[in-house]
């Protein structure tokens, strides 16, 4: 308990990791020889934004979402449809996507999070699949399974189109997302979440409104996914409903779990591994799913806390 109420005596200490992340992001482009690698880095960054948000929910609130690709896809499609069919400014469309996703997340989570247990997992599963089915069937708006084209992002009167521009934009958004997540974890909301992860009943007896906090963190994580989705839509310029599929939701969960639950940097590392791995495995294309499934099972059985937290413990032991 003492650790929970500790005041941050060195307020800069918690940003040390953020500093490392920014440093890595700043020097990485010099090691990426061409657009192919930049492209992988950008996709990693977009996935990492989703995972940093999802990690707040899985790692800190102890809840699991099997539908985050639904929020990612919905954010992406709201951006796409508003810019293509209604001529909205991309930034405004992105904001609208976030509002829609946030509202939807709130409406679903609020009644369900009053129940204890894993009802949220079932509800998010249902919601995610419904979103993906709607995107497939509303062909007039979304183009259906064939997908739709999305115009490039315009910010401050300037088109963002080169891979390098996108790299810096995504890196900046990721760092802001990580910074927000870290602040959230050290806020009263974060403390309450850790409390209710330990024991929901104990948290309630000290007057923590667990349902309210869980809802809040769920909505925040949905917003992260929506923003990442909108960026993805403009970046890739082409969108299909597979971005909102159940499989994609599972991929996001895998990233968080592999990198390390309750570790913001773990989420980034997990996103990097799962994004890069299929590129390396293209030679073994047929074995991709087998490998992915094995990774998921082995991580959960042998290091349920994930890569980064285990590595941190190991390093600490070696250094002291």
């Amino acid at each position, binding site marked *: 308990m003492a650790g929970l109420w500790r005041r941050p005596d060195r307020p800069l200490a918690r940003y040390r990791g953020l500093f490392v992340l920014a440093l890595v992001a700043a020097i990485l482009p010099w090691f990426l020889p061409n657009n192919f690698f930049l492209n992988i880095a950008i996709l990693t960054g977009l996935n990492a934004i989703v995972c940093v948000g999802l990690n707040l929910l*899985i790692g800190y609130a*102890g*809840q*699991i979402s099997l539908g985050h690709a639904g929020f990612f896809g919905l954010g992406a499609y709201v951006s796409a449809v508003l810019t293509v069919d209604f001529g909205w400014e991309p930034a405004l469309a992105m904001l609208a996507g976030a509002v829609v996703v946030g509202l939807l997340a709130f409406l*679903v989570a609020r*009644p*369900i999070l009053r*129940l*204890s*247990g*894993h*009802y949220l*997992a*079932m*509800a998010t*599963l*249902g*919601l995610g*699949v*419904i979103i993906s*089915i*709607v995107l497939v*069937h509303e062909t007039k708006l979304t183009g259906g399974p064939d997908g739709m084209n999305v115009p490039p992002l315009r910010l401050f009167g300037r088109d963002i189109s080169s891979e390098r521009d996108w790299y810096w934009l995504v890196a900046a958004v990721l760092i802001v997302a990580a910074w927000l997540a870290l602040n959230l974890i050290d806020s009263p909301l974060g403390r309450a979440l850790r409390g209710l992860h330990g024991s929901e*009943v104990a948290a309630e007896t000290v007057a923590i409104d667990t349902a309210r906090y869980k809802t809040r963190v769920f909505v925040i994580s949905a917003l992260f996914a929506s923003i990442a989705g909108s960026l993805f839509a403009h970046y890739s310029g082409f969108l299909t409903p597979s971005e909102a599929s*159940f*499989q994609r939701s*599972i991929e996001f*969960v*895998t990233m968080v*779990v592999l990198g390390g639950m309750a570790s913001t940097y773990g989420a980034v590392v997990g996103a990097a591994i799962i994004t890069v791995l299929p590129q390396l495995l293209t030679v073994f294309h*047929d*074995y*991709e*799913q*087998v*490998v*992915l*499934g*094995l*990774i*998921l*099972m082995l991580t*959960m*059985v042998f290091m*349920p806390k994930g890569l980064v937290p285990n590595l941190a413990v190991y390093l600490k032991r070696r250094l002291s």
Partner: protein
Amino acid sequence: MAEFVQFVFSGITVGAIYALVGLGFSIIYNASQVINFAQGEFVMIGGLTTAMLAQGGVPVPIAAAIAIAAAVVAGVALEKLAVEQARDAPVVTLIIITIGASIFLRGLAQIVFDRNYHALAGFSGEAPIHLAGATIVPQTLWVLGTTAALVLALAWFFGRTLLGKAILATSYNPLAAQLAGIGTRSLLLLSFGLSAALGAIGGILIAPISLTSYDVGVLLGLKGFSAAVLGGLGSSLGAVAGGLLLGLIEALGAGYISSSYKDAIAFVIILLVLFFMPRGLLGRRGTERV
């Protein structure tokens, strides 16, 4: 009217399969509090293995027996190698393990077999039967008959045999069951084997009606799960009722409202159930002790 009868028949046929998958969810949930997301893959293993062996010239009954055995091996291995190793882990961890297993099994099926769709011939030919103005394929009767027999056998097993009662006792209170001399761990293994067998049988029965491929388990699994949630997770009778009801609603919805949104119905039902009656139709009511 004939149209309505037709929809009802196709509804309860698919519903019976959902019921078998839902029963599998319930049995494992009762034994271990795990929601086994690899349940749909057992269905796939059953149907696909039978279809591929039958294509290779193996008689269907032998092919089916091999397929069920393969699913049981997969289920027992999942329990022994993964779920049991992480016994004390939180439920989130266990759920993720079964999701990993489902991806793994799907990948394995792609390698062992292929990515194509495969058909299996009906057990008693394809000559349609006319019944109350509706036309049904003979396989429908196989599905309904086998499911009814399995449900009765399970009712007998859980209600009348010592082994079945031991499983029920374990699901109510594992510690008390252990104190009464029940080997709870081997029962866990049995539960996984049993639900794998149920899933596989469902997969074999439905393969002649809808085609089978390495990824049929995803949707069938999720719908079986919806059936279990609708009936009340953990209630066997609930899973059967939920499955039949879900199949009916789907068939009628597809027939009268919108066929393109047929697959969404199951998931809308999950949300409605969670909003308005989270214990499902026949779920256990009771307070949770801390």
